[in-house]
């Protein structure tokens, strides 16, 4: 039985076993976590404009926040939300939080608990109100534009919203000085079309990297004032806050895996081209 034809390196590369590829990726993630490289993180203008807006608002301004994602995007949007919420608590802004995706509320509740540890005097119903989840998607956005109390008679913890101190001068979307929304899908479009455009509230988008490109047309049309895109955006925000956290520590691994995939795609296409050329030459020679 004659031995199989000696595989050239390009052919070997193209038929690389799946298990090798997976272990390469796992290593590219794990190694930088153990021995961090500390590549500098450059701030992009899109993230800077969201940070500047929250930083330059006078203390105690009203900020509307919506966390429309579920655990599937938790690794990306949770660090981003925590960093922005830390910024809001540091600047003592008033914040009202809603959730449009059914599986999301406990992520926000957990984030609030963690921020309360850092800022003990950050009071529920005075500095923040967690309105929680309400069924309806776009209808909730329209409802929040009319009035918080009608759409959320009770907040996430079950207390009545109408008697809360924060509701006195922040009772609907129109009274917000700024809005920040965390999006994993196109519910961000609904917020712009049915919420912020109607009540002309400036809004910034904290989005997963999957949907970030879809929000750039809104940025150019000035319907959005900034975009925090993916875990990289979260890392930039953490650097701006001078409070490096989960996102910054992940950046080295992110770089390594991207480098690995970049090389893989380029080489694979190159070798595929070479192999195709070789086949065509041998085929022409046999004819």
């Amino acid at each position, binding site marked *: 039985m004659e031995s199989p034809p000696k595989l050239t390196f390009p052919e070997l590369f193209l038929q690389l076993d799946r298990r090798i590829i997976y272990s390469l990726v796992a290593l590219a993630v794990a190694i930088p976590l153990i021995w961090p490289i500390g590549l500098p993180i450059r701030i992009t203008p899109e993230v800077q404009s969201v940070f500047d807006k929250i930083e330059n608002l006078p203390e105690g301004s009203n900020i509307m926040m919506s966390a429309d994602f579920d655990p599937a995007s938790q690794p990306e949007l949770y660090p981003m939300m925590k960093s922005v919420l830390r910024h809001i608590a540091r600047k003592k802004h008033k914040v009202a939080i809603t959730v449009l995706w059914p599986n999301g509320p406990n992520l926000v509740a957990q984030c609030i608990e963690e921020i309360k540890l850092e800022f003990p005097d950050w009071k529920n119903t005075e500095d923040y109100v967690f309105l929680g989840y309400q069924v309806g998607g776009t209808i909730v956005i329209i409802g929040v534009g009319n009035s918080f109390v009608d759409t959320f008679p009770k907040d996430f913890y079950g207390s009545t919203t109408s008697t809360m101190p924060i509701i006195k001068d922040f009772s609907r979307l129109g009274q917000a000085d700024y809005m920040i929304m965390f999006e994993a899908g196109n519910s961000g479009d609904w917020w712009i079309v049915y919420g912020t*455009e109607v009540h002309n509230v400036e809004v910034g988008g904290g989005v997963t990297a*999957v*949907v970030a490109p*879809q929000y750039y047309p809104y940025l150019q049309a000035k319907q959005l004032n900034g975009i925090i895109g993916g875990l990289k955006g979260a890392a930039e925000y953490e650097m701006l806050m001078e409070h490096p956290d989960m996102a910054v520590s992940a950046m080295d691994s992110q770089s390594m895996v991207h480098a690995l995939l970049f090389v893989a795609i380029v080489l694979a296409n190159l070798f595929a081209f070479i192999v195709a050329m070789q086949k065509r030459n041998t085929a022409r020679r046999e004819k």
Partner: protein
Amino acid sequence: MKNNLSQAAIFLLLLFTLSLAGFAQEPVEPSAPGDGSEIEALQGADIVIGLEPAVSEPPAVNVPLPESATLDDLANDNGTGVVLQFPASPGETAELTYTVLIGESAGGPWTPVAEFTADTTWKEDEGHFFPAFYWFEKGRDGKTIHAVPIRNLGENVPLETGKQYFVKLQSALGGTTAEYPEVLSATPRENWFDTSKTNMLILAVLFGATVLYFIARARRDPNLFIRKINGLDAVDEAIGRATEMGKPILYLNGMSTLADLSTLAALNILGRVARRVANYESTLVVPCRDPIVLTVAQEIVKAGYADAGRPDAYNEDNIFFLTEDQFSYAAAVCGIMMRDKPAANFFMGYYYAESLILAETGANTGAIQIAGTDAATQIAFFVTTCDYTLIGEELYAASAYLSREPLVLGSLKGQDMAKLFMMIVIVIGTLLVTFGMHFIKDLFKALG
């Protein structure tokens, strides 16, 4: 084909000029019906002599004052606002600050409600309250008229509808203040038509009528022209090469339900594929994720085989329900691909994150792959792993091209006409704006 397009173009240009003419008839700020106060206001200033004499010591320095000022009901609001308008005073500079005071009686207690420097609060910036001015008279000779909407009495106590309010205007320059001699008055009224949304209304009626018109036409004449979608040639070619090898063909209708437009489009294309495959030996495998889509797919394939004159070749077990869970469905389909090694894979309809698992496994089995989806986030993965990809609306066009179903066909043609209108306006608007004329562009500003 020729007349169909030209007809539509004339139809649109006619409507376009009509809407322009419609606009032009509003030389003067349109007053809402049943709201008299504005018209009188325009004939002459609403002069009410203040009871206590407006005695102010002779100004040490000459403080500019506007020559005229008017106070009217605020347009396009729910009756809780009045608006003070006055042309820029001669010789006003940025240092000059105006203060507006409001009172509930002619001599009544005055509460300051607005304070601004002379280089701000222009009529141009209040597009919502002065749409006609914004669209037709704006920017002719720079910013000349101040406009101050007044909607509350100091600390956000809204004005009451139907109650008369009085306003005084003061200007101050370097410590000395001067007061506009007259005390103006007006009554806020509820407006019944928001003139700032006129452009939206015209466009909505225009687009809506176009869509309805073409749906009606599509009902009468189903072969309205649609260009050949070269994606369909790719589908036929793929079927041809697959049936030569006698290997099975895999067809997916997407992960969504019948409520999704792209699932309906996928089922239309399935009908064509079934008709082509019927008179060859290769089997057509259709694993489904939604029970309702399954029953519809079975009917379509059976009808396809019957049309091709091969009802006997139809085998219902090839169109089956796998599972509803997203990732298990993807894994099961990959199992079929690796086991039966289909020669052609079709990924039509709406897909989520699992699209890559399907397309990658399929690419490795060396099958010809054709995809068609409007899921923007997944198109990139199909383009890089499949031989041909129908993108977004092309999928709907392919289904309209095949099924000639009036609803889909008419909507597509209606949207095409709207696109034609948009393309014309973008080209003309950009040219005009580049050479300084903002007229066309401003017509499409959402002032609402």
